[in-house]
């Protein structure tokens, strides 16, 4: 059902956990749907210095979280905001149709975390 890239990302996910001293957090999804994704970031001078995730969900959700966090580390906020779920899918070389929503969660978690950062900055 999943390609090798997805299984690889699921088996050996990068950036698992919570960033110490994070200043941005975004949690999307709910337990009833079977997917919850939490992304924490440390943003300094407009740049995402670090990002980590915790995910309750299927293999595609874990793989999407791992890929999405890897994609944003070192990027500016504006660059991170431009990341679409299709970029996550492309990086994973495809997801089954019923698992597309996992990549959407990743996109939403990034946006929510950045919103959280802005609100904490009082902007």
């Amino acid at each position, binding site marked *: 059902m999943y390609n090798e890239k997805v*299984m690889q990302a*699921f088996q050996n996910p990068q950036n698992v*956990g919570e960033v110490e001293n994070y200043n941005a957090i975004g949690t999307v999804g709910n*337990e009833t749907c*079977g997917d919850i*994704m939490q992304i924490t970031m440390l943003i300094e001078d407009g740049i995402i210095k670090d990002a980590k995730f*915790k995910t309750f*969900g299927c293999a595609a959700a874990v793989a999407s979280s791992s890929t999405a966090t890897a994609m944003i580390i070192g990027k500016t906020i504006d660059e991170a905001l431009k990341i679409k779920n299709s970029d996550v899918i492309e990086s994973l070389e495809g997801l089954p149709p019923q698992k597309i929503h996992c990549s959407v969660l990743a996109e939403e978690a990034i946006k929510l975390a950045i919103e959280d950062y802005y609100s904490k900055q009082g902007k």
Partner: protein
Amino acid sequence: MERIYLDHAATTPLSKEAFEAMYPYFSNTFGNANSQHGFGRDGAAAVLSARESIASSLGAKPNEIYFTSGGTESDNWALKGTALALRDKGNHIITSKIEHSAIYTTCKQLEKYGYDVTYLDVDSDGFVSPSDLEKAITDKTILVSIMFANNEIGTIEPIKELCEVAHAHKVLFHTDAVQATGAVRYNVKDLGVDMLSFSGHKFYGPKGIGGLYIRSGIKIEKLIIGGEQERTNRGGTTNVPAVVGMAKALEIAIRDLDKNNEYVSSLRNRFVEKVTSQIDEIYFNGPKAKDYDKRLPNNASFSFRYIEGESILFSLDLAGISASSGSACSSGSLEPSRTLLSIGVPVGTAHGTIRFSFGKNNTVEEVDYAVEQLVSIVNRLRAMSPLYRPSTTTMKTIK
């Protein structure tokens, strides 16, 4: 890597004896059992003997056994055949909330055509109550269909009592015995049921073959029509090798039933004890140890708090262990299983459910390896889960 198969409720490997019994009927003795010549007579003789053997295994008469393509067809036939035959008598069918989808979706289809279906609740271990059934019967009720044993949580329903309730109201009774046959000792006459579905590949027989027992004197409408097969009641060229293989497999399953159950349940009990002592915050779904006589001997179903079934299932698969997800998420739907929700498992927790079903070829070493892998997988996934907060533990380990 050696793979370990812990999904015997999904299907079982064909036994060597059944395979050998089937072998001659693929190519050497290939005749159409309905042909009027020597080749045909050889096939017909094999089918006759298989029918007698299966009837004897189930306590039925040979002319009460009808061969079908499997449990799903048998269930479809029993429900639709009864609904059509008795449509002038009534339009009400009673079943349970935890039936296999072969019954559930057939009931849903019948609802589209004007039938009313009552889906009985079950208790927290999955048991249907005879008094609930009694209350649900109306003067429009034409059929009660309750599964013999549940495929997800292993609950063995009180079929004899339920059947007596239906019969007291002159209502027909069908049971889906796909999981029970070969694992629970029964006799159709003693149970009293009017119809009973079974499937070959659940008891080390071949896939694509099953049967429906229809008690003498019960008339239901035909589902698959065409030729004269099955005394004109089910068309389609008889699958002679499969029929022969199923009969042999059932004969062995009934012969070795006590021995196999004792062994398989010892593996299951070992697994359950180790898992519950090594992993906290889990539910053991279905009848507990004190009611193990009312649970399929091979079944263990666990819900693991804070993690999701598909992740567990794939991780197990990567470790060489084949089990089954209790949540339907892996099949593309976000709805968790009806059975788990019906016994009161919270939706989120139901997503983290895995069914392990053991078989006669499993070993103690395999069980121990599976426990070891499972513990490390659950710990790994929980460490990754945003829901896992050891400090805010709210659930207790179910012993």
